[in-house]
């Protein structure tokens, strides 16, 4: 499948292949997250299958608008803006609020997208839980209100709290690998709150390291059968919370997931992470596509650099070069 963007946020035009591993590398403020959010928006605006009833189309329009308003600013979309998903010569086009249906979720073989923006979603679990209870309570009295919390975090919390029935047998091994790496396990207690268990001791999640929380997200998504060959997972700069060695562990785990059919889109500005992804993608012989996001004037471009990653590494090594040069400028004899 490919995603095509036109005039969204700072991205003027971009075509990115989503197949196996997709890595978008680049500095901050180059449109990496915009593409991920556009993919999330377009996918969630799609119908599951070919049903042309008007009410279904309207329903998807409502969902699409709600997501768009939550994750994009009003200025991000212009009259010429669109997001297009293309697979096997069929396409789905999200343009403003009009949705052109030709391609369905069933066609692209993706049944859910988990967007991991930050592991701090764990710190807000009490808030999400209380708010959802409150909304549901008010709804039972005919009050249809919705508390405006960050959509992507709420969506992820939903995926962490609920299970899918479809089970694939490869997942338990990787869950065990994560448990061994973080030396503990995330378990949902009877009160519906997740806690971290390590050697019979239990910890509230605001007490544990952010890196552990990140791996905990993947462990619970595996537990909930939300990482399988029909899943797409979007990881936005996962390195931010991870020690370099754990960045390598994360890359290794991601490559294993992809080997088992999960599709992964990663935004990264870490040379460690990108080099590790390149290495493990080749080692596991998985499909991989690398892109470089760059800003020029007020626009961002996303170029395919799969066959030569040098532009990515050169770009991301610029900070080191500056440091090296500055350390010589102040050389102390």
């Amino acid at each position, binding site marked *: 499948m490919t995603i095509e963007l036109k005039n969204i946020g700072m991205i003027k035009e971009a075509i990115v292949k989503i197949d196996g591993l997709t890595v978008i590398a680049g500095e901050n403020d180059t449109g990496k997250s915009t593409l991920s959010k556009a993919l999330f928006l377009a996918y969630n605006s799609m119908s599951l299958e070919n049903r042309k009833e008007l009410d279904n189309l309207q329903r998807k329009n409502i969902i699409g608008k709600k997501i768009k308003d939550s994750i994009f600013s009003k200025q991000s979309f212009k009259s010429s803006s669109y997001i297009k998903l293309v697979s096997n010569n069929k396409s789905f086009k999200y343009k403003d609020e009009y949705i052109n249906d030709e391609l369905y979720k069933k066609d692209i073989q993706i049944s859910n997208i988990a967007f991991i923006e930050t592991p701090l979603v764990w710190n807000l679990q009490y808030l999400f839980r209380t708010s959802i209870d409150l909304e549901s309570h008010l709804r039972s009295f005919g009050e249809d209100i919705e508390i405006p919390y960050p959509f992507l975090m709420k969506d992820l919390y939903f995926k962490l709290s609920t299970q899918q029935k479809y089970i694939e047998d490869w997942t338990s091994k990787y869950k065990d690998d994560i448990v061994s790496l973080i030396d503990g396990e995330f378990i949902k207690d009877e009160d519906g709150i997740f806690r971290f268990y390590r050697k019979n001791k239990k910890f509230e999640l605001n007490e544990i390291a952010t890196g552990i929380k990140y791996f905990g997200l993947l462990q619970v998504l595996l537990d909930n059968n939300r990482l399988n060959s029909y899943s797409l997972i979007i990881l936005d700069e996962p390195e931010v919370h991870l020690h370099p060695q754990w960045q390598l562990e994360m890359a290794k785990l991601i490559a294993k997931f992809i080997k088992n059919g999960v599709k992964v889109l990663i935004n990264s500005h870490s040379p460690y992470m990108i*080099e590790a992804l390149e290495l493990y993608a080749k080692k596991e012989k998985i499909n991989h596509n690398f892109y470089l996001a760059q800003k020029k004037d007020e626009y961002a471009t996303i170029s395919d650099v799969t066959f030569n990653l040098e532009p990515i590494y050169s770009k991301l090594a610029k900070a080191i070069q500056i440091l090296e040069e500055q350390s010589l400028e102040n050389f102390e004899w």
Partner: protein
Amino acid sequence: MVEYLYNYFNKEPFLETLSQVSDNICENNGKYYINFDKFKKPTNCDNITNGMNSLSSVDSLLINKEYNHIIFIEFKDMNELENIQEWFSQKECSIKIKIPDSILLLGYFLQKNGYSFDEFINMKKSFFYVYKNSVSKSIINNHLKNRFSKYNFLLKNIKIIETQAYQNKFLEENQ
């Protein structure tokens, strides 16, 4: 002592162009630099290293008389390496050995020529690891930058720098 070293090494047997000293990773800038590798060979230094043949040495020395300072320099072309991580695991210790070996060698030489080893140990010394790489600078730099910290007590400055920065920001300004 620095004057002695400067005069001793600024003789034809030890001098080569920058590109030759640096195994072609630096461009020739028309000046001549000490090829310290030559020094460890007994034939080039009056058997001073006799019995110390297994010593290794850095590639070059920069001797600054004005500041009483010696810089030990090692050059490495990292572009030619297929796998940097593998090189780190196999060859990293050889650079670490070159630093104390070079200091030991020079100290021994000075002592044999009537200078105080203690004085040599106390004089200002630095180490530069100059590498050439177009893509993995941050990985090399992050990997190596703390590997030499155990020599902090011996060396005033330890720098890991890419050839362009070394040439443009250091050689141009300081030679």
